[in-house]
């Protein structure tokens, strides 16, 4: 079996989630190649070459791939797929965007968001916002899979695989990149932080999210939010945790002024320890919290910052 793992990156940093996707690939078993598609992405390729348990790194570096537009990347990946029996990517924005295109070009089904590998053709994935867990068998000879990184532990990075470059550039010519509006933050990524503190509608406005700063500084935490907080414009969309936002599983998740709707729980209920701060003792979040405190968040947060 030979497996192609698509590296998730921004042309400069290899996302740690890719290390978990490689772990999932190892569970399937076989020769693993990491594919880096981008522009001026040599540092990513070098980092990928260090990932343990892989055979080689293949780099496709071209201006046509700078923004990893799905139309171009999917043509490249489906062409390369001829030499592999499994194509895998992380279920983050890039992978979610182009992988189903690859599957359709290869005329196979895609198995999305796997959280466990039962065998080379059987996978486990959450459905219904995580309220049911499905075990699915793929009948296709070639498999296209996206991996939910919370399901796997990252592989180490002290290897040294070879890097080969591809020079075939495919440009579908039907789409172009206009602009990015990215959130800059000094804090760790939601997906990798070992502590996450999230605020909901109870925070009342974006300014009040500053109440998290001191706590997040002390705990090295990432800051997240519920959909209600994002919809209300308190914080940007990339902070949303949930069924349709980011899926996190930190050691400690602190939910503040969040009621605990199933769509929010879908994004955080695999956290090791959950703390809920809510003034309503009936809030459903308390049903999943290891430690709950019934309190007004505007009093509780400054106290917490002092107590740490």
């Amino acid at each position: 079996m030979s497996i192609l793992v698509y590296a998730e990156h921004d042309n400069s940093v290899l996302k740690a989630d890719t290390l978990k996707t490689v772990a999932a690939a190892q569970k399937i078993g076989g020769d693993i190649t990491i594919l880096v598609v981008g522009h001026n992405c040599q540092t990513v390729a070098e980092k990928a070459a260090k990932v343990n348990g892989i055979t080689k790194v293949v780099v496709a570096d071209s201006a046509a791939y700078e923004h990893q537009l799905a139309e171009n990347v999917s043509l490249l990946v489906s062409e390369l797929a001829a030499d592999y029996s499994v194509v895998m990517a992380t279920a983050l924005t890039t992978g979610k965007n182009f992988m189903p295109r690859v599957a359709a070009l290869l005329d196979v089904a895609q198995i999305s968001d796997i959280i466990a590998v039962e065998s080379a053709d059987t996978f486990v994935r959450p459905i219904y916002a995580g309220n049911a867990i499905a075990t699915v068998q793929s009948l296709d000879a070639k498999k296209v899979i996206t991996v939910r990184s919370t399901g796997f532990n990252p592989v180490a990075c002290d290897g040294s695989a070879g890097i080969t470059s591809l020079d075939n550039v495919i440009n579908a010519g039907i789409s172009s990149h206009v602009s990015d509006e990215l959130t800059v933050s000094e804090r760790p990524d939601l997906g990798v932080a070992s502590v996450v503190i999230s605020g909901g509608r109870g925070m009342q406005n974006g300014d009040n999210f500053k109440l998290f700063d001191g706590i997040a500084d002390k705990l090295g935490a990432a800051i997240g939010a519920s959909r209600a907080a994002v919809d209300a414009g308190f914080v940007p969309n990339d902070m949303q945790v949930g069924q349709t936002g980011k899926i996190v599983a930190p050691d400690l998740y602190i939910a503040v002024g969040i009621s605990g709707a199933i769509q929010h729980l879908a994004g955080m209920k695999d956290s090791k320890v959950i703390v809920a701060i809510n003034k309503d003792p009936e809030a459903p979040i308390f049903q999943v919290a290891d430690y709950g405190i019934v309190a007004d968040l505007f009093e509780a947060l400054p106290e917490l910052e002092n107590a740490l």
Partner: protein
Amino acid sequence: MKVLVPIKRVIDYNVKVRVKSDNSNVDLANVKMAINPFCEIAVEEAVRLKEAGTATEVIVISIGDKNCQEQLRTALALGADRAIQIETDQNLDALNIAKLLQKIVEEEQPQLVILGKQSIDSDNNQTGQMLAALTGLAQGTFASEVKVEGEKVNITREVDGGLQTVSLNLPAIVTTDLRLNEPRYASLPNIMKAKRKPLEVKSAADFGIDLTARTILLKVTPPREREAGIIVESIDELVEKLKNEAKVIS
């Protein structure tokens, strides 16, 4: 310009689904069903394009048994002009859904196809992208803004790091994210009017596509339930527990 909006009938998002005791699937008997929330946002966007004079006709389509006509009628009440049901009893994989939709795209020649980014039952997030690949069209997934400008459409997408804007040649495929718009409620007069709007039924078998399933659902189990923990009385107690009992902070 024509806009095609594929919609799916799914469990209402407020209902917590239960797994059947024989672990064959989830239990949908007597459960409230609705238009998938992302598909509803897609219908709303198409109707707004029509109201703005950009779109001339909004066609909704659903693939499923007779029951999905209920959701098609809802979409007509929200402002779609006509509906197509592709009748099948099979529970089709996203790829097969995309293949059927491809046929309708060939027949109807829409300039835009707007779909939900994922359905809240299977949570696959595949159909729009697959349809884009099969039709060879550009895609703007997870859209929070759609702006048609001449021969192109600009799509602002919700990505992991924030927002990204791409420009696509028309015709194009769009999938909706939550913040694209807030769908309206259907008014009673519009619900009445929707009953007289055209709804054409086609049979999936008539398209000559091999619809054999590519995946087998072996079993469905309930997730590991978290046990409710304890209510602490003070922040000091909380911090003490996190340090000494849970050992997640130091």
